[in-house]
């Protein structure tokens, strides 16, 4: 009896070994690193929803032009791209970069450039006649020492104030243009028992975004940019003023903000439980997914005192050094930078194109307006999304913000920012 059971167990184990062997032989054909596969790996964190649809549309369009190039869509989800970034970092260090990867323009891209891991793309820009097709401020964000290193695909705006139209109409309010306006509106709403400002900062960066918006308003685009190069110190009076406003603002937010993700905060505005929300314009995608209509159910204006300024969050793709078929990657980057590619991707994702000469008719009303602003406004990099300063600095700012939101101590906050900024000059 026991003997038979024993034999059975051995049989099962042998089967396991065989199975393991099977899957081994199967994947050794297709597995291994990108260099062996000869596939074009596109690495991103676009795994679901409009962004995944957009990527698919883009890949389909590319596939029509180059049916022979095999594409592998490598999307890694979770933690708003943080898992993807972890995987990317380990792959880059292991000397096995994906053919091309999603990276925010600005500091996040430049970390890779400075590490000597990226190829310059000036010749690609020249070949495609892209000079002047992208705004200069944007090209600056993907350049280092006068060379261009990536192709921007999409643009999101970070300085947007979303509001519930019905609440504003019912109370005879106008969306605020200045912070004085903002606090007047907020007081009235508070008196009515409506939460004036919804924040969902479970992941901290949401609060950092609000703060960077106020910084932009108080410093103006030039000084705001200089803040990240160390030319303007963090004990500048304007920074303190921004911190004071931020502190005051925190009196008007939902009590459970630290328990909510940004989607939940947007939902509060959608449900009429809160009146306003400061968030990037991916919030539009959320409203849309919940069946709400722009300019009917919800409205969008720039955050107070940032008129004429455009906080840019841009996804870009570059060419890592040491990939097996750089020519194929360049073809794909050409597609990304083309009008066709940008118009295939962006309407689906809900973002606007990085080029300024695309087909406006393909975009919704909100985007049309944003595209106009994008052409004429001063473009500034977002800190919260890794464009303005290196991630190591951002981590420290997030820590300072997280403590500030609870302790509300302006002096400590400024000091913490100052301490962190010593890293910027390196």
């Amino acid at each position, binding site marked *: 009896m026991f003997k038979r059971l*024993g034999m059975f167990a051995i049989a099962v184990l042998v089967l396991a070994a065989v199975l393991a062997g099977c899957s081994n032989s199967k994947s050794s054909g297709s597995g291994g690193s990108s260099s062996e596969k000869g596939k074009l790996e596109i690495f991103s964190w676009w795994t679901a929803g409009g962004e995944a649809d957009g990527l698919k549309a883009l890949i389909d369009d590319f596939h029509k032009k180059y049916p022979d190039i095999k594409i592998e869509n490598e999307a890694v989800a979770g933690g708003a791209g943080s898992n993807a970034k972890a995987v990317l970092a380990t792959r880059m260090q292991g000397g096995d970069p994906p053919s091309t990867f999603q990276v925010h323009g600005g500091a996040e891209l430049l970390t890779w450039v400075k590490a000597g891991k990226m190829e310059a793309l000036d010749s690609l820009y020249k070949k495609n006649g892209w000079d002047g097709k992208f705004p200069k401020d944007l090209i600056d964000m993907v350049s280092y020492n006068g060379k261009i290193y990536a192709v921007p695909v999409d643009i999101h705006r970070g300085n947007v104030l979303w509001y519930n139209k019905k609440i504003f109409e019912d109370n005879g309010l106008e969306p605020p243009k200045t912070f004085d306006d903002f606090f007047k509106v907020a007081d009235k709403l508070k008196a009515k028992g409506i939460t004036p400002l919804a924040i969902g900062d479970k992941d901290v960066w949401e609060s950092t975004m609000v703060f960077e918006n106020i910084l932009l308003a108080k410093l103006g685009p030039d000084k705001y940019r200089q803040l990240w190069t160390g030319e303007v110190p963090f004990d500048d009076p304007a920074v303190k003023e921004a911190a004071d406003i931020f502190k005051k603002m925190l009196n008007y937010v939902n009590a459970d903000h630290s328990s909510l993700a940004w989607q939940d905060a947007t939902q509060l505005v959608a449900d009429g439980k809160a009146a306003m929300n400061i968030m990037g314009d991916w919030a539009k995608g959320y409203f849309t997914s919940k069946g709400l209509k722009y300019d009917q159910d919800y409205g969008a204006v720039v955050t107070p005192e940032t008129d004429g300024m455009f906080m840019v969050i841009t996804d870009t793709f570059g060419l890592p050094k040491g990939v097996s078929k750089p020519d194929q990657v360049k073809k794909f980057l050409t597609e990304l930078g083309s009008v066709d590619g940008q118009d295939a991707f962006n309407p689906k994702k809900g973002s606007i194109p990085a080029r300024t000469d695309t087909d406006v008719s393909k975009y919704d009303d909100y985007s049309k307006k944003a595209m106009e602003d994008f052409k004429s406004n001063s473009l500034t990099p977002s800190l919260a999304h890794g464009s303005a300063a290196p991630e190591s600095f951002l981590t420290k700012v997030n820590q300072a913000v997280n403590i500030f939101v609870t302790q509300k101590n302006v002096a400590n906050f400024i000091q913490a920012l100052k301490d962190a900024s010593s890293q910027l000059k390196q």
Partner: protein
Amino acid sequence: MAKAFARPLIYLILVILGVLFLVPVYVMLVTSLKPFDEVSIATMWKPPAHIDFAGYAEAFSKLAPNFMNTIYLVVPATLLSALLGSLNGYVLSKWKFKGSDWVFTAILFGMFIPYQSILIPLLQFIRNIGLYNSIPGLILVHVVYGLPITTLMFRNFYANIPDSLVESAQIDGAGFVGIYRHIIMPLSITGFVVVAIWQFTNIWNEFLFAVTITSSAQQPIMVALQNLAGSQVVEWNVQMAGALLAALPTLLVYILLGKYFIRGLLAGSVKG
């Protein structure tokens, strides 16, 4: 029969606690059956207006391709780590050598390392041996990091098998392998069940190794489950439906083998 407590009271407490334990399951179930525009934190308790299986349909269609990956991963990884753990346990309990206790201690310590800390060298190692982005690579990782606990469980399990059994077999001329096959192995069925359940559940639910070592077509189901969420909009109905679907196999294992699990624990790690 023990009748320590008034039965109705026991039932009452168990029912109350049972209901409390099921509250999260209720939330998952209700959310998974709603269409996405009905899903929000504010209405989390409300049952769906109409039952909508769209979440399940989408979750199923997206998870199905990765389901087989997980099977190819979990079955060999579980069995291999159980087999190795059993051999180790056998050696460390019945064939002790000088310093074997130290070896056991050193093996056991591997159970407690925070895995984030070894992620980078691990990845480089896996890539160097050519197993990156493959199920065998993931199997290797799970087998290795499963060794401490499987060794522990089997060693304690075998400590309860009297040495006299081994002794008499030796007198009959059985060797190391023979004793394992004819005496130890047949006695370890419940041990194998416990270890297998433990490893099965852990490997099935594991995310960190899976997301770093595999990509796209090779990804196991837990990574695919995460991939149901975009970086901007998370469709919670699909997520919850996916989570319930992904938990079904482990759940099934518990229900079918739950008795063995407890019986095996009794003979196994209990004596830790």
